[in-house]
Structures are given as C-alpha cells and as structure tokens.
C-alpha cells in the first residue's frame, strides 16, 4: 500500500512464554484493543517498524502531489481545476498529519525527509508511473485513492493511537477523492470517442500498477505475522487486493470500458473474481528505483527541498529574532 514494502523489525512474533513482563503487558493491551500512546512503553522493534511505515505513508502523500499536480494547469474546466487543486492540497495535508504522527515516535520530519531524499526510505510505487492524459486524473482518484481507502479504513483501528487518529481524519477526505475521480471517469467514458479512448488508456495503463500497491503476494511477504499481531497491519496484502478487484470490476463494467486484464473472470466456486498476477519483477524494479518516474520524482522533491532551503532558513531566523525581541521586552 502507501507503505507496501514495510518489513517488520525483529522477525516472527514471540510466543507468550518467551515474552518479558513488559512485552506481555504490551501485547495484552493490543489484544484488548487499548491504544498505545506515545508515552507508553513499546518494544523497540514496534517503534522502528511504525516509524518506517508511517514515514513511508507520509512520503507517499507528498510525492503523490506530483502526478496529479502535473495536470492542474491543464485541467479542462475551472471547476475541474478547483477540485483537483483541493484534492492535491488534501494530500499535502495528509502528509502533514502523518509526519506529525511519526514525530511522536521520536523522529523529526526533516530527518524523515533527508532519509527519503537519500534513498533510505521509500514511497508507494504507484507514484512512479506517469499521468499521460486527462482521464488519468479520473483513474488516479478512482483507483489509486480507492485502493488507498481499502488499506486505510482498517488502519483507523490500528494499535498506535496517533496513527489511528491520523487515519480517521484522512479517511474522511479520501472518499471525496475517489468520488471525484469516478465522476471524471463517467464523463470520459460516456463522452466522445477521443475521451473514451483516454479513459480506456488510463485504466489499461494503471490497472496492474494499482494492484501492486497492495504489496507482494502473502507468500512472498516477510514478517506479516508480527505486524498483524501488533495490529499495525490489519489485513494481508492478498486479502486487500482481492477486495479491491471484487469492488472495481463491476465499476469498470458500469463505465462500459473493456476489462484491463483478460484473466478477470467471475469464479462461482470462490464467489470472487479471478485475475492475473501483476508482473512482480516490474514491481521490485520500481521499488529499487527503476520505475518510469523514480528519477524524475526524486529530482523534483530534491529540487523543492534544496531550492527551498533559504526560505526555511529565512523564516526560522526571523522567528528567532522575534522570540528574542519578545524576551527582551519581557525583561
């Protein structure tokens, strides 16, 4: 998902008998659905895993501004431009909530940003794909935000309090994102031949990258068990992916578009859709930095950070001057 390659630190969950008293009390709280708060004791591995997961999620929101920002100046009507601006603004706000949640674990936003820019931290693979026609703005909202919602709704119940509460705020806004995306798709799919072509192109191009958002198949996922036990993961990758396909295929049909995967077939026995696996070698390549957009996305973020250094320094210097003057006046 937005943090799709998180590895849980420290291997498989410990057995009750092997836990220290502190660990047992901690796990007991989680099992009784009591939230863990910043001042509570927590295992180092829990903290480290959460920092990575929330940090990756925050970075994804921030980098996620770029593929949609790519179309703001070209939006076809004033209303669409305003909606897209509002959405991208929301995503930046999500980044802010999540960095704040991560900071409660003892890291700073600047540290996390440096880690991202140095390639030590990741963001969701989906944002390394280009947005090439206007229907991509529909497909991103409908499919990408739609997939994110499936992951984030259960995370509202995650064990770490600040993360869960950030998710509650974020989820409120996400449904508007998905709705506006589907609305664009409806206009495009029911529009002119050229518009329908854009819509089909967007769905075909983004389908498998969106399926990859849920992360590798459960059989290849390391340490899912520990994350599930700690309730920082609620469903497995494959469960969420299946849920996404089951909810999305009827929507594609409703739009009157062709299915993007010939392997999609209703299976009477399982009561679910069968579908083809994404190309996992492509996925691992994108994660490694070899996706179509990795280099440009990071270049853009690094430029924003480097070119903006004088602004951050200037505002900080001014704030200090003001505080010093206030102090002087008080004396």
């Amino acid at each position, binding site marked *: 998902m937005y943090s799709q390659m998180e590895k849980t630190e420290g291997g498989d969950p410990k057995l009750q008998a092997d836990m220290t008293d502190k660990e047992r009390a901690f796990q007991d709280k989680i099992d009784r659905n009591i939230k863990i708060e910043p001042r509570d004791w927590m295992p180092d591995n829990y903290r480290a895993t959460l920092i990575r997961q929330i940090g990756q999620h925050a970075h994804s929101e921030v980098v996620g501004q770029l593929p949609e920002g790519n179309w703001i100046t070209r939006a076809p009507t*004033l209303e669409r431009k305003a909606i897209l601006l509002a959405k991208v603004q929301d995503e930046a706000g999500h980044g802010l909530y999540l960095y704040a949640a991560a900071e409660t674990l003892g890291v700073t936003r600047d540290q996390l940003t440096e880690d991202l820019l140095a390639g030590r931290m990741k963001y969701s693979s989906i944002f390394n794909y280009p947005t090439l026609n206007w229907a991509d703005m529909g497909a991103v909202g409908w499919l990408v935000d739609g997939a994110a919602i499936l992951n984030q709704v259960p995370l509202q119940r995650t064990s770490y309090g600040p993360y869960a509460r950030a998710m509650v705020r974020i989820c409120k806004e996400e449904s508007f994102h998905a709705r506006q995306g589907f609305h664009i798709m409806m206009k495009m799919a029911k529009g002119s031949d050229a518009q329908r072509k854009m819509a089909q192109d967007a769905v075909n191009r983004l389908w498998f990258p969106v399926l990859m958002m849920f992360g590798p198949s459960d059989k290849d996922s390391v340490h899912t068990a520990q994350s599930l036990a700690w309730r920082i993961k609620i469903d497995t990758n494959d469960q969420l992916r299946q849920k996404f396909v089951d909810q999305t295929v009827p929507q594609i049909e409703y739009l009157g578009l062709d299915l993007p995967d010939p392997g999609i077939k209703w299976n009477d026995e399982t009561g679910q859709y069968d579908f083809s696996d994404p190309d996992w070698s492509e996925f691992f390549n994108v994660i490694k930095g070899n996706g179509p957009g990795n280099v440009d996305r990071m270049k*853009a973020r690094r430029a*924003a950070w480097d070119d903006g250094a004088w602004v951050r320094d*200037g505002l*900080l210097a001014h704030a200090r001057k003001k505080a010093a003057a206030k102090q002087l006046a008080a004396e």
Partner: protein
Amino acid sequence: MPEKAVNESDQQALFQFLLRLGDNTLVLGHRVSEWCGHAPVLEEDIALANTALDLIGQTQLWLGLAGEVEGKGRDADALAFLRDIWDFRNILMVELPNGDFGQTIMRQFLYDAWSSVMLGRLIKSGNPAIAEIAGKVSKEVAYHIERSADTVVGLGDGTEESHKRMQAALNYLYPYVGEMFLSDDTDAAMVSAGFAPDPASLRDEYDVLVAKVLADATLTLPDGSYTHKGGRTGAMHTEHLGHVLTSMQWLQRAYPGSQW
C-alpha cells in the same frame, strides 16, 4: 438611438471591467498552482494550493458575471478557455513567470494589497452583483494579504540571503505595480455609473499598506517611476501569457465541445 448606444457602451465597459478582475485571478491562480508539490516546505504547498484554489473560485464568480453581462451565452469556462491573448485583460505582473519562491510571494503580496483595497471599495459598489461577489471573496483576500505580508516580512527580515532575494524580487516586480492604478475610459464609465472607484484613487491607501509591510521586512522601495503596462487594456501582453494559455486551454482547444 443615443440611449441604446450609451447603454451598450456602458455594458461593454462593465464587461471589460469584469474581465480585468477575472483575468487577474485566473492568470495569477494558474501561476500559483504551478507550485503544487514543489514548495520549500509542506505548509507552503498547502498554502499555495489554497491561494490558487481561492483565486480560481474568484475567477468563476467574476468571469461568470462577465459572461452574463455580455449576454452572448458565454460562461466563465468559455471566457477562460476560448479567448486568445488579445482579449485577455489581466495586468502584466500576474502573467510573469514565478521565479523563485521569494518572487512568487512578493508578487502575491503586491497583488493582495491592491486586491484588498479594491475589494474594500467594491463591497459598496452601486452594482449589486459586484457588491455581492466582493463581499463573498473579501474574507479570503483578507487572509491572503495577512499571509503574504507575514511571509514577506519573515523572509525580508530573515537571513542575509533571504533579505537579498526579497529585495531583488521587489526590484524586479515594482515596475509592474503602477499598471494597477492607471485609469482609462472603462474606469471612467465605472466611476460615473457608481460601480467602481477610479483606480488612481486607491493608490494612497495601497502605498501606506505596502510601506508599512516593507518597513517591517527591512526592504526598500526601488527608485524610478517607470511603469510597464498594456495588460489590462489588452494593448500588449508579455510573451509569457501565450505559454500560460497554451497549457491552460489545450484540452478545450484540442477536443472542442466535449463535456468534462
């Protein structure tokens, strides 16, 4: 015949006046939106997107009213996406490229200051539709000026580097400020109808506001009184506007008549 002609020219003047307001917000909103995802700090990404969003919202109101006044069935979208350069009536300053963050925020401040003074008068416009829009958007603009002024002060009175950049931005932009206060026949018609103030009459209030903020920012107004003009009359835009319109209007031009 004379009476109808007078009405027509009044209506034409009102249309032009509304285009000036709406094109300013449209083109500036476009420029500000170019920052999306590229700002120096996440809070600024949010603030700039918010400013752009407000400006596009104001555009919908001003150009929407312009279309009604014109009475030829053109709505705000038709005016935004289907006019060519010579019909645009924004001031030159808003179509200039963003430059660095300092230049963007200095331009925003110089524009917000004018906008807040102008809207203060338009709230009392004798034209109820104008007064209504001015009332609606003046809260947003009050917030914009507060924010852009604070940032100009913070960066002007920040580090040596930030001070230098803000002074350079001011020096570059100041020759474009005068255009906001030039008057012509369109303005005279608005004044005599009681719809809008003479732009020149806003200057004193504007200068006081700007001088106060620049003093706090430890910045100095550049010498020289030369004014670049030609945007709000449409006589001569910069080369930059064509590129703005090329991206803004592309979909509407390439796929005419589509529903989006």
